[in-house]
């Protein structure tokens, strides 16, 4: 369900390169298969024409790359932002993590992205994928062509898309959308309704699968520390491997806490988790609590906003009442 085609993006990139607006392009490059998409920086027209890709598997959030890419050189970088990326983009600007002057951002509408990972798990030996309207045709090596509804392959995070509206761009391709009234907190609420024992069992089941590969951390656009506390011997919490049932809880709680008020809910953590741990449910819990205790706040909605966790009012709820309210009955 691409609203804007690859050619439109490519032409825009070529045009901006040609007229000197940008010197480099951050985009997606297709891998061995069309659903195997990786981020890449293109330095010239030829490289772009050859490898530039834009399809329904370009879900990865690129904003984090801006930190390292803009630090490398004075050259101006073109980046394409989906609505969800634009929130992370703003959040990084709020935290002074890259130089806005060095980036030219083009907003691209997004109709939801597919998950290559899910696809591979659903269908064996996929050789190619094509999307036509709301149908997806999957070519396989052995089972011939299979057809799916776009919705069924839609990646989990896109099913609960919070916004089709770009909050940052220099230029927009196509039409901008609206902030959506999503049901993203439904799952959190379901957990809140459980008994503590059920919740514990649920999380124990989920988190015990963690292999501490750090993929969630490495992909997270909010986890951009120069050095992570978990890698720092002076922090007192350095650890590498999951050694027992609590270690990874500590990791995930602290990670969620560190991104609380900064997490834009882009869902990358869960997307990349090889163990399918619904990590976004931790982040969403903080987002939901922040909204209900301190008023609605969307990280990245505007540059320079002050996150509720570094703010206060004199009549905030006490931690004891907050826990009660956190049960979804507020």
């Amino acid at each position, binding site marked *: 369900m691409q609203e804007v085609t690859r050619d439109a993006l490519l032409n825009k990139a070529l045009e901006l390169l040609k007229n000197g607006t940008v010197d480099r392009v951050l985009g997606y490059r297709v891998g061995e298969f069309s659903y195997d998409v990786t981020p890449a920086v293109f330095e010239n027209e030829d490289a772009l024409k050859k490898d530039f890709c834009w399809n329904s598997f370009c879900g990865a959030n690129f904003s984090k790359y801006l930190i390292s890419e803009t630090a490398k050189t004075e050259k101006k970088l073109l980046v394409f932002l989906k609505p969800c990326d634009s929130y992370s983009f703003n959040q990084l600007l709020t935290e*002074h993590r890259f130089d806005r002057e060095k980036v030219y951002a083009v907003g691209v509408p997004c109709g939801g992205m597919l998950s290559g990972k899910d696809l591979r798990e659903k269908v064996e030996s996929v050789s190619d994928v094509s999307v036509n309207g709301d149908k997806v045709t999957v070519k396989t090596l052995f089972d011939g062509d299979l057809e799916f509804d776009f919705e069924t392959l839609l990646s989990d995070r896109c099913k609960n898309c919070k916004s089709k509206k770009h909050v940052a761009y220099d230029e927009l391709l196509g039409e901008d959308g609206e902030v959506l009234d999503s049901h993203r907190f439904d799952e959190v609420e379901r957990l809140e309704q459980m008994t503590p024992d059920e919740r514990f069992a649920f999380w124990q089941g989920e988190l015990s699968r963690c292999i501490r590969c750090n993929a969630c951390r490495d992909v997270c656009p909010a986890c951009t*520390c120069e050095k992570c506390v978990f890698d720092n011997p002076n922090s007192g919490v350095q650890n590498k491997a999951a050694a027992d049932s609590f270690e990874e809880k500590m990791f995930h709680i602290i990670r969620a806490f560190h991104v609380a008020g900064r997490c834009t809910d882009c869902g990358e953590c869960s997307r990349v988790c090889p163990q399918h741990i619904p990590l976004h449910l931790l982040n969403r819990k903080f987002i939901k609590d922040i909204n209900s205790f301190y008023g609605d706040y969307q990280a990245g909605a505007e540059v320079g906003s002050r996150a509720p966790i570094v703010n206060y009012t004199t009549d905030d709820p006490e931690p004891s009442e907050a826990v009660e309210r956190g049960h979804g009955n507020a």
Partner: protein
Amino acid sequence: MKRIGVFVCHCGTNIAGTVDVKAVAEAMKHEPGVVFSTDYQYMCSQAGQEMIKAAVKEHRLDGIVVCSCSPRMHEATFRKTAAAAGLNSYMVEIANIREQCSWVHKEMPIGTEKAIILAKAAVAKVSLNAPLTPGESPVTKRALVIGGGIAGIQTALDIADAGFPVDIVETKPTIGGKMAQLDKTFPTLDCAACILTPKMVDVAQNEKIRIFSYSEVTDVKGFVGNFDVTIKRKARYVNETLCTGCGACTEKCPMKKVPNEFNLGMDNRHAVYIPFAQAVPKVATIDPNHCLMLKSGKCGLCSKVCGAGAIDYKAKDEFLEERYGAIVVATGFNPISMEKFDEFAYAQSKDVITSLELERLMNAAGPTGGTLLRPSDHQHPHTIVFVQCVGSRCEACAEKGKEYCSKICCMYTAKHAMLIRDKYPDTDVYVFYIDVRTPGKNFDEFYRRAVEEYGVHYIKGMVGKVTPENGVLKVQGSDLIDNRQLHIDADLVVLAAAIEPDKSARPLATMLTASMDTNDFFTEAHPKLRPVESPTAGVFLSGTCQGPKDIPETVSQAGAAASKVIGLLCKDKLLGNPCVAHSDEMMCNGCSTCEKVCPYGAITYEDKEFRMPDRTTKVRRVAKVNEAVCQGCGACTVACMSGAMDLKGFMNKQIMAEVDAICK
């Protein structure tokens, strides 16, 4: 590995009664790093301290744990002992085994067990202690007072009296503030000008004091002891040093219809003017909004008549940069706008006035020369209604009005009522009140005199509507005691408007990183114990910028602020608290999160060049803590997700070690 000594105090039987001190000392010997452990009757005694000093020398100790009473009692003592023994005084930790152990537990085994754990925690912490040195900073021996009302005047005079130079910055062309506009003062009824103007003259004549009138502070940098302040001297188009204040320019000025701010617009002044006769500095100012010469280039009369040649139509705003050791905020108050309270018909009738306007109407130097005449027709009013609490004590969420009590209205209204009845006994005076609040020396007596001797009618109730009709103000209000609605035909209605901080206070607070409450009053460092200091070191509060106050209170606070300033300026160097935050720039993300939670504005950012392993350089934004400003709360350390920000003396590692020791 550290060489730690542990000293367990008996405190007579205070500790030894419930804690087996020998067992504690013995147990500590086996802790990693402990090379010496002993117990003694009174560690804090001379002999006890000598014992510690000797042990430091003998066992080459570089860390000390004293198991004794609360650190709030004797931490300072043992730090001095350590210093005397040649150790850094911050290499001492106290295990509180008295207040938090022996005194609250009854059984010896339990007390002993807990004492051992507390001692272990202290050992764990001290083994990670690093020597700390308090930072030093010089003190610029000059103070800035922002605001030239009675608060600022008093503060400046007191500081100057102690021998320190002081600058006063005042936005108006003259100092004097609100008090200069008042007629008489309660509860003594002496004339405001008679007690204020001599002080203004003192300021003008004091060699230590410079007055920057018609000026404002536009930027503040630096910190306690060394504030760099930019002062904008607005162009007044009259050379201050040449002007003699003769007033010839004013007499000749053809622009006579400029509303006179000093009389709250109830009469007019000229475009070139001296606000009032006793103005300090007594120099003229040209109002560029009304001066014909400045607006159209045609006129120039004042320049022609000025014998001193002081008129300068080409004057420009000037910016001055000055350094100060301390800053006193004395920005004062204003009555709130009556715009949202027009049920009292303030906008509809000239005869509905605020109390401050009444002050001018009763003042001999006011628009009526001190005869009470109502503004609409200059007739003598025979029935006057005072309405209390207009805009004070409103619901917090109300868009109009203020939640607080303005404090001064009850008393000045009693004063007004009394003065009017005294001078014009044929006048009926009604005061509608909610409560009469008179907590001050001779205040209630004063109010009672208004009722008993002067026959002022005090009505418990509130006015709900004022209707001007045919030259009469029809006042409708309630009398709650008599349970009836009153209808009074009044000639003059006086509203006790709530007071609010001057509008200049909010941007100033931002410049000073001084905190304010929701009403824009400056917050004090401690509401009871440090009422004249702002939480920002080196910034002090004087007068109504901190909360509603009357004149005696303002003057005493002004003096208190001055004494705090003098105390600071007396020092040659400031010793900081060494337990301050510190950012590891290698790990800092430059994300500004710590800056947002710092209550003191102690954190700034700079772009710093780093050499990378591959020999390239990279510029990164990193946090920098100003140690002279940081108070060591640690809010930033938790806000910092990378752990770059840590607190000396309470490092993450140290606290974690304590946790581990306790939970082991």
